[in-house]
């Protein structure tokens, strides 16, 4: 199953957008155009459905409704997400949520509507009679409640499997204390090593072996990678490196380079789970030669695991891959009325260039350049 279509209403940079999604969707756009916020809308669905999540928590973690609502939205105060899910064929499921906040008191988020349809048939339509009798019910989605989501548990489970990767090497190395204090720490990788440690030993070893093989290409000195616990029981990744001494040197994650940690995190995440995977700028800290190979690497794993992958990127090298098709590229274009999003091939001039065989990088990236780039040349203290 994959998300084949998404609509956002008043979600951060997006006042109103409506776009089809392929099984590999690559987001490009200038800085601050909303690439991360687009991915965050998909993460929001995960946060609604995951254990310990739900509407209140998901909104609170994002700083409240007022932080989510689009600044460009004027009249319509409701925030909303609608996704269509399909199994390769026609749309099967549709989940729609709209919410707002209480006008007084704690200003908790409250549901304006929650609708689920399957093959066009309405399975859930809130607010219903019970919601009208008991307004408190509107503080929770049906998605987050197992006694209410029985008829569409399949999509609740699908949302729960959404995973997001934006590893910050410094947080993996020493983020334990920071992570405990920060609600969003998980997405930056503070519990990354714990996740590896919790994986069944056989699976873990097999994955680490595969990762070592792939990592060797980028870091030729690496011989072996395994998990070790220190005297306090805290897991560490230990790498053996060859050098001029007869015995290889051992180093743990605290000494790994940023590039090693980020590639390792990427390779692990690709093998973990089968739900949609959101990758935020996977090119960071990596050598351009490695970045060029990421699209085909991601595709190989995607083919085996049948998972949808979203990638946000600024990388010329990543987009130079000849296997990337124009319909996989979503261009984010900021405007006074919020960011617009469209498939690269919906613009005739880009379509014409791609049809000549020009790479996506050469044809599309110029459109994501800020218009007054030369101002940077004029910048000085």
């Amino acid at each position, binding site marked *: 199953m994959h998300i084949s279509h998404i609509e956002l209403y008043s979600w951060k940079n997006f006042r109103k957008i409506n776009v089809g999604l392929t099984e590999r969707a690559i987001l490009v756009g200038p800085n601050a155009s909303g690439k991360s916020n687009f991915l965050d809308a998909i993460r929001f669905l995960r946060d609604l459905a995951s254990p310990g999540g739900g509407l209140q928590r998901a909104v609170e973690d994002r700083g409240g409704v007022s932080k989510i609502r689009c600044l460009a939205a004027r009249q319509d105060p409701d925030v909303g997400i609608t996704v269509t899910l399909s199994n390769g064929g026609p749309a099967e499921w549709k989940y729609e949520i709209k919410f707002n906040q209480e006008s007084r008191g704690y200003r908790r988020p409250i549901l304006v509507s929650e609708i689920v349809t399957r093959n066009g048939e309405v399975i859930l339509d809130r607010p219903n009679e019970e919601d009208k009798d008991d307004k408190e019910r509107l503080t929770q989605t049906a998605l987050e409640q197992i006694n209410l989501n029985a008829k569409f548990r399949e999509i609740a489970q699908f949302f729960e499997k959404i995973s997001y990767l934006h590893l910050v090497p410094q947080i993996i190395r020493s983020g334990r204390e920071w992570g405990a204090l920060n609600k969003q720490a998980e997405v930056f990788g503070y519990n990354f090593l714990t996740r590896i440690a919790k994986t069944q030993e056989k699976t873990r070893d097999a994955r680490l072996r595969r990762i070592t093989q792939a990592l060797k290409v980028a870091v030729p000195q690496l011989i072996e990678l395994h998990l070790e616990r220190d005297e306090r029981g805290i897991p560490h990744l230990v790498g053996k490196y060859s050098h001029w001494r007869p015995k290889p040197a051992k180093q743990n994650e605290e000494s790994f380079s940023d590039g090693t940690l980020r590639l390792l995190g990427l390779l692990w995440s690709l093998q973990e789970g089968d739900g949609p995977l959101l990758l935020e700028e996977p090119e960071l800290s990596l050598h351009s030669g490695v970045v060029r190979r990421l699209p085909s690497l991601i595709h190989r794993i995607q083919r085996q695991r049948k998972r949808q992958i979203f990638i946000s990127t600024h990388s010329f090298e990543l987009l130079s891959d000849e296997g990337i098709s124009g319909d996989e590229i979503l261009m984010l274009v900021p405007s006074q009325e919020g960011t617009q999003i469209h498939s690269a091939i919906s613009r*005739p*001039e880009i379509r*014409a*260039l791609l*049809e*000549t*065989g*020009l790479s996506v990088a*050469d*044809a599309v990236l*110029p*459109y994501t*350049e800020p218009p007054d780039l*030369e101002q940077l*040349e*004029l910048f000085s203290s």
Partner: protein
Amino acid sequence: MSPIKVSLIAEGPLDEQVLRQLLIQSAPHLLPGVCHGKKGRIWLNTNLINFNKAAHSWPFVSLGDLEHDECPPTLLSLWYPNGKHGNIQSRIAVRMVESWLLADREAIAQFLGVALHHIPHSPEDEINPKLVMVNLARRSRYRIIKEDMVPPINSSGSVGKNYRGQLEKFVVEKWQAKRAQNCSPSLQHAVRSLKHFHPVLPGN
């Protein structure tokens, strides 16, 4: 009539700024849009053919340097072996885009802080206009021009660390194609061609 949007194709970032100014100053019926390329001459050699194919549905204007090639027609036949589409304009600076900047003699002399008689009268005859520009910067009475545009001793680079930044500033703030074309036939040719460039697009 509203201006026609054209996409640019440039050899480098400095060429892009020159091309934008050229269109703004000499061809107000054209509106410069995004700029492709900026990855050097080899990229132009390989990819201009694709833009030529796409020109049936979108107009393009390109700018490259002649450098060591024999003459502009040879270069054009290398780029467009099967002929050039009417919706693509390929301009070539003889020998480098720096010649077009040097051609605005008073303005560049003032910008670099050198006497006017040091600026060549016929910059297109210079084999290496970039070197001319760097050597002029060496004579500058402004410390910042020397520091930015001249490579430090023992540097393997041919230009200073902010050579391009200074020249982009010059192009955006001072350079006038109308004045410069008097000392540069290839620029004069470019100004004239862009003035008369009227792409024909489907639906028009």
